């Protein structure tokens, strides 16, 4: 405490001076970073969210296992506008099933998340129960191999934790997971 009374060229005055220089330098550096990036920030675009590009997705199955959530935030979405409403659905039944009934061994979905409803001869409406879906993408693969490709995987935003870096995106084999502005909305398949 007494040092403050010392003459100007005392160590304390020198340290104080150095510290002020340092503060100026640090402040300048922060202002520079803020200035440079301030011009770049996407205030207009607003927030970003993680989305799968359904066109790129290859259903490798990693969405099911790599998400940080216990049950993946990736869910199967269904584009009814694209669906053929087939009875023999490649996403609903496994390939080469003997009998078209709903026995578990015939079902493509391992969790029973796909239900179907008879609409009229010969059409069936398919619905995904998101609570059961684990995002494995087996039905998506079936549908895009044998059907119209109306089933696709997408990141359900109500579940997604919006990690700073999506863990699935780092192991996605096709680089299909990207950040898109929230204002763009979901990447869907069913816009007519």
């Amino acid at each position, binding site marked *: *405490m007494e040092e403050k009374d010392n003459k100007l060229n005392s160590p304390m005055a020198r340290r104080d001076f150095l*510290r002020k220089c340092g503060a100026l330098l640090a402040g300048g550096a922060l202002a520079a970073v803020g200035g440079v990036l301030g011009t770049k920030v996407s205030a207009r675009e607003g927030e970003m969210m993680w989305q799968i590009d359904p066109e790129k997705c*290859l259903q490798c199955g990693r969405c099911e296992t790599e998400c940080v959530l216990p049950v993946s935030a990736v869910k199967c979405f269904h584009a009814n506008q694209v669906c053929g409403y087939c009875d023999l659905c490649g996403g609903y039944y496994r390939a080469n099933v003997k009998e078209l009934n709903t026995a578990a061994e015939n079902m493509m979905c391992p969790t029973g998340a796909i239900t179907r409803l008879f609409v009229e001869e010969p059409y069936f409406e398919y619905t995904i129960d998101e609570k059961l879906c684990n995002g494995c993408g087996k039905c998506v693969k079936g549908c895009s191999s044998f059907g119209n490709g*109306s089933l696709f995987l997408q990141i359900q935003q109500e579940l997604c934790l919006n990690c700073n870096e999506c863990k699935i995106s780092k192991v996605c084999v096709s680089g299909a997971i990207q950040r898109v502005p929230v204002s763009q909305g979901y990447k869907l398949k069913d816009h007519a």
Partner: protein
Amino acid sequence: MTTLIYPLVARFPKPDFTSGYQYPEIIHGMPWEQFWSWLDLAILLGMMCLVAWAVHRRPSRRIIFTVSIVSVLYFGFFRTGCVCSIGSIQNVVLALADSSYRLPLVVLLLFLVPLVFALFFGRVFCAGVCPMGALQELVNVRNFRISRSVASALGFSPWIYLGFAILYAATRSQFIICRFDPFIGIFRLSGDVGMIVFGISLLVLSVFVGRPFCRFLCPYGALLGVVSSVAIRRVEVTKKPCINCTLCHNSCPVDAIREPYANKGGESRLVGVRRIILYVVMLPLLTLGGGWLLSSQSDTLSIAHRDVYLYTLLQSDLDAEEMPVEVEAFHEMGRKMEDLEASVADVRQAYHAWAWAAGALIGFVLGWKLIRLSVKRTRKTYEIEPSSCVACGKCFDYCPQNIGVKK
């Protein structure tokens, strides 16, 4: 708006329903992301003001403790961590390195606000606003002091971590700070085994050692430490004169309070000055050496990038049966080998440049730390070292000079 995506072949025609069937209207829920992130920022700002006030105007540990609990509950368990100031380093680096990356305004502010506060008031962000620091603080029961030499050596590791985080973020390889975040698994009550084990062991460690993550790992804490070492208002144990009672020194969880030091005896002044001159000469050499060392390894490091990884997989001999999914996908997507090679060359070039930068940073900090360690100063009283002090305020209640000041 959303791009139109149709399957390449519509194998089955659109059904023409005769029963008057209507397509169901499926609405996929959207979160209030905009709302939440701004609310987070507002709460962060409010908490920081509160802590700055509690530290500087009204020395009070109780307020900081309350803020810690709120932070762990809100930022930790409720908001589950993302995006945070520590991780925002990577977003900022990426935005500086890659102009095509769009940095959200909130993330920029999350990066800048704690640093600006540190410039004015010291590390008030660490005090209790950061949920990771707060969590470690709350479980810290017994504080075994680590020897100063070990602590200084370990205190260098955040800079290595920061260097690699910059390297991997700038090259769009990985956000390692997020990937190896120890406490996010605890906050989310889920995560892979490694993450949970790391988190829990660090938490157990912080029962006995104050804030191990903040002191020996956190790269943002390293930045805050630099800024707060030149802070305009320093954190003080007491406004009254120190009576050298040693109580604050014993209470400090991060060992930031230095005891009085006579700086006499030992070596002659000339030896000390010579050592400092040597280190000052070594500073540019260490900087260049660090850059050279890391950049010489840049090709090996670049395997963290997705394209380089894929390229090395393609180069290696593969069993047709055990084809990695990456290679299958490469063929399935019909990507051209030339494109991949061009991309790999670009990535390796970027790696070389950024490894220079990261290595130079690490080398410079090493040199700087050596200089700082050899500058010995006389202290007549107990003094807070501002770069280590996390402004937790534990010392306030221990200082006998503060009795009666609060009420």
